[in-house]
């Protein structure tokens, strides 16, 4: 588990975008070797998408040989509804970059057979060779995608009925009318995310400080699923560290020079230092 503590949420956006940039460019994707990216929606990653679009426009990155898989989508919400994740992804990211629409995968919440849709999604991920980097956020209760606390660590892509808490939290996106909030969603499972070669979690704001504490300082726990993730890098702002012990924060901050190397264009993931024999 790596934890990168940035001063502000803006810097979380920049850091995470730079990390994606470096991972894709180091991978050197080509027609025979696609980079496979797992993507989230929501307020937290918005800044990261903006930065990636900026880098694309500055020709620092191309998405021509990138395949994407999104985490989740509401069931029976029209695809062009402003709260649908299809709408979010198209308008906040895809329409601004050079990705081939054939390489974009978002669960179809209007599919006639939802179970089949979920199974097909898992198969497509396998066919693509698995996910190289899965980016996600977590909710104040620790949920990732629509995997609410208590979801099995072995869960796969499936139909989920949303908890009352989630419906209430989402009502603000549907004119504060809870009856308009879709009560089902398709979501990747915790197991689907954990299978990725690497997971990057973005956490900002003091309201998520407790979730970060649970993910880092407590034991592995399926009520706080991020705690169970292997090969994870968490990017957070100062506010999100409020519930952490001083010792924990100081430990990770002391590693910041190492972490900085992760996003430098010529940086290596592991620092080597030659020790002189005198």
């Amino acid at each position, binding site marked *: 588990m790596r934890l990168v503590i940035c001063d502000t949420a803006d810097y979380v956006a920049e850091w995470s975008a730079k990390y994606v940039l470096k991972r894709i460019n180091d991978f050197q994707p080509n027609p025979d070797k696609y980079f496979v990216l797992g993507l989230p929606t929501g307020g937290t990653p918005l800044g990261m998408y903006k930065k990636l679009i900026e880098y694309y426009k500055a020709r620092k990155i191309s998405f021509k040989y990138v395949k994407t898989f999104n985490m989740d989508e509401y069931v029976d919400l029209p695809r062009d509804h402003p709260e649908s994740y299809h709408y979010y992804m198209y308008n906040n990211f895809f329409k601004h970059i050079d990705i081939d629409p054939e390489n*974009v995968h978002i669960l179809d919440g209007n599919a006639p057979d939802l179970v089949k849709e979920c199974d097909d999604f898992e198969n497509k991920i396998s066919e693509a060779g698995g996910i190289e980097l899965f980016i996600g956020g977590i909710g104040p209760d620790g949920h990732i995608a629509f995997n609410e606390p208590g979801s099995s660590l072995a869960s796969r892509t499936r139909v989920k009925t949303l908890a009352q808490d989630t419906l209430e939290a989402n009502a603000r996106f549907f004119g504060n009318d809870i009856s308009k909030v879709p009560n089902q969603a398709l979501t990747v499972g915790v197991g689907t995310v954990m299978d990725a070669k690497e997971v990057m979690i973005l956490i900002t704001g003091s309201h998520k400080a407790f979730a970060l504490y649970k993910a880092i300082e407590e034991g592995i726990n399926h009520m706080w699923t991020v705690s169970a993730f292997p090969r994870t890098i968490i990017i957070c702002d100062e506010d999100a560290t409020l519930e952490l012990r001083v010792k924990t924060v100081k430990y990770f901050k002391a590693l910041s020079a190492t972490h900085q190397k992760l996003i430098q264009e010529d940086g290596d993931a592991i620092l080597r230092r030659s020790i002189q024999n005198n």
Partner: protein
Amino acid sequence: MSREDQQILKQFYNCCILRDGKILNEDLWVRDGKIVDPEKIFYDEKIKPHVRIDCNGALISPGYIDLQINGGFGVDFTHNINNVQEGINKVAKRLLEFGVTSFCPTLVTSPSETYHKILPNIKKTKGGKHGAAFDIMYGFKSLTDMYGSLENVCLVTLAPELPNAQSVITELCKRNIIVSLGHSVANLKEFHHRDPGLVGLLTSDQVYPGKTIHYGIIADGIHTHPAALRIAHRTHPKGLVLVTDALSALGLQEGVYQLGQLKIEMRSGHAYIAGTNTLCGSTAEMSKCVRHFKEVTGCSIVEALEAATLHPATTLGIEKTKGVLNYGADADIVMLNKDLELLSTWISGECVHCNYKCNCQ
């Protein structure tokens, strides 16, 4: 266009577009001459555009629509009786230089023989490389003059106080022909507080809710005083339609011309009766009218553009396909710079005129 051309998907990028009363930082996608929804294409068809056109930061507006134009470039629609179609085609082509992609050739009040000769020879046309689209508008005295030849007519101007006006209006409405009030003594005399005449209609409380009264105004800086434009804009901006009312002298170079019975002289952009200082009709260019209107009223870019696009389209009831950049509308567009100067004109997504080295080819 061949079948293959029709399938070409074009993306205009690096531009702003006027849509839903807002200027948006959006791309415009066109296929088969229509504006299409790129999000649908992205998810359903999963294809990328075949052609990408860099607009260099231009503002894209729907093409201008001129509801009242009597001629131009030496052609007078009412007097060129013998080669009607030729004259209209010439004007349609040249109007592209002013950003006009649709217009109503207007016939001024004439003896009935004139109408009988002209009307059957004008047909509603879709625009293209040959010129702007057109529909017909004209004024006349009584319906019997015209009976039987109204099928090519979309708008009729008449004086409401004439006998039988009410029954004529009812008859025209039945045929889906728009009725415009004018030629009236009411608009010849000055506005009076006890008898506001046609101007009074702009703030009338007798208009059905949801109905908008549209009115044309020539914003060429000559025919209408800036204060009149400001009054119009402030009292009833939603119904304001910019028209040119241009005559045959529109677009002519400096010099003396024989137009019909009249000898005219073009001097510093205006048409005078030769050898005098008497103006002989409007030579207003629509793109200039839009800029002038914005400048003197201080209105927003959106308001100025809509007065030459959405409002005239709404007047004719064609706002689903013309005067807007909504999905499904015709891709008749103009590209403008930030001062609303015309850069290029496009009909059905094809560049038909450009004022600079644009990337249209």
